[in-house]
């Protein structure tokens, strides 16, 4: 297997040197280039097409989030990991919106850094666990807001019963057997559910149900 090709973008030389050591000695990656500001990061990324970019946020000129945006518009197979001092949620969400697939704090350890580079190269998303907790808290907050505004949750009891089983991954046959209905009736109720939730399939229906708290959790299934 060929080695993972990494580009470093950070305006602090000593930090880049440390990163290079970690990447090449502990990670067995190849550092293909080093950029000291956002503009240079974009130029080198386009020229070198690295697998992964380790990107600082605050750099002179174009910052890391703007650079990430430009890079992800041009290169679809390059994964950007933000490596920063900033713990604020807004930076995480801005960076993810710009196309970053990883977000680590600079006080992370080398093992986590290496695991994140490997995961992002495979196309996965990785966050520092502390940041993941913030993302989770924010997700809870917006899903409460979404539940409060929900106008589509007017499902009948029968439809809610079906939807609850869809959430748990049951197919139509299993739902029919459990609720003593014909498969036809289950299919009809599902169609109604899709229409009310504005979705096209059962996966979307299940996620919408959970996201908006439509499926009441108190009924025993």
């Amino acid at each position: 297997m060929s080695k993972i090709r990494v580009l470093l973008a950070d305006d602090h030389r000593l930090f880049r040197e440390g990163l290079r050591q970690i990447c090449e000695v502990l990670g067995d990656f190849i550092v293909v280039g080093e950029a000291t500001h956002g503009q240079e990061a974009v130029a080198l990324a386009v020229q070198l097409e690295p697998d992964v970019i380790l990107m600082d946020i605050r750099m002179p000129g174009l910052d890391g989030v703007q650079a990430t945006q430009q890079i992800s518009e041009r290169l679809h197979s390059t994964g950007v990991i933000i490596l920063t001092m900033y713990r604020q949620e807004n930076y995480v969400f801005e960076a993810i919106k710009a196309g970053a697939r990883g977000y680590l704090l600079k006080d992370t350890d080398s093992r986590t850094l290496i695991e994140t580079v490997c995961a992002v190269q495979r196309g996965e998303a990785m966050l520092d666990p502390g940041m993941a907790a913030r993302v989770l808290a924010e997700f809870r907050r917006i899903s409460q807001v979404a539940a409060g505004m929900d106008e589509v949750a007017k499902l009948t009891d029968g439809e809610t019963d079906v939807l609850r089983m869809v959430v748990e991954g049951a197919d139509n046959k299993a739902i029919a057997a459990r609720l003593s209905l014909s498969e036809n009736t289950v299919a009809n109720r599902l169609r109604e559910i899709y229409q009310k939730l504005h979705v096209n399939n059962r996966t979307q229906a299940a996620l919408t149900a959970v996201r908006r708290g439509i499926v009441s959790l108190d009924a025993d299934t």
Partner: protein
Amino acid sequence: MVSQSFTALPISIMLVCHDEALRLTLLGWLAGVSDVQVMAEACPPPDEAAADAPDVILFGAVVLRLRDVQRVAQLSAQCPRSKVLIVSRHVDPDAVVIGAFRQGAWGYVTVADESAATMIDAVRTVSRGGAVLSSGLIRWMLDEIVQAQFGHPSKDEGGQ
């Protein structure tokens, strides 16, 4: 921050698991670990919870059902200082797992493909205030947040 490692108390754990085999597996995994301590194997009544709340509530399930999600919600409400970590024997549908996270869980691991070491790492992570989620779910939640905040999903939608 002086000599913290020498004075740190073990992570206290309450194990909630109705499946005997899974319960024994989890107890076995925790038995030899020096920085964790199983203090209870059931849920304390609400009055005691505040005083005696464990650091981590380890919630074991063979298959995660909506009624388990409801239980997670109750435990989280009862013990707001404790972090609920779910250990499931199956890889459960995303919607149910998301439901559990929405209701207060801070971590989810499956016994199916994770080792004891992974679970214990997860216990340590949630006890320190971190969250343990799969890459796919992080991606999904981030897209939800980005969509709520900015009106459209992130550049590189994972396609869950």
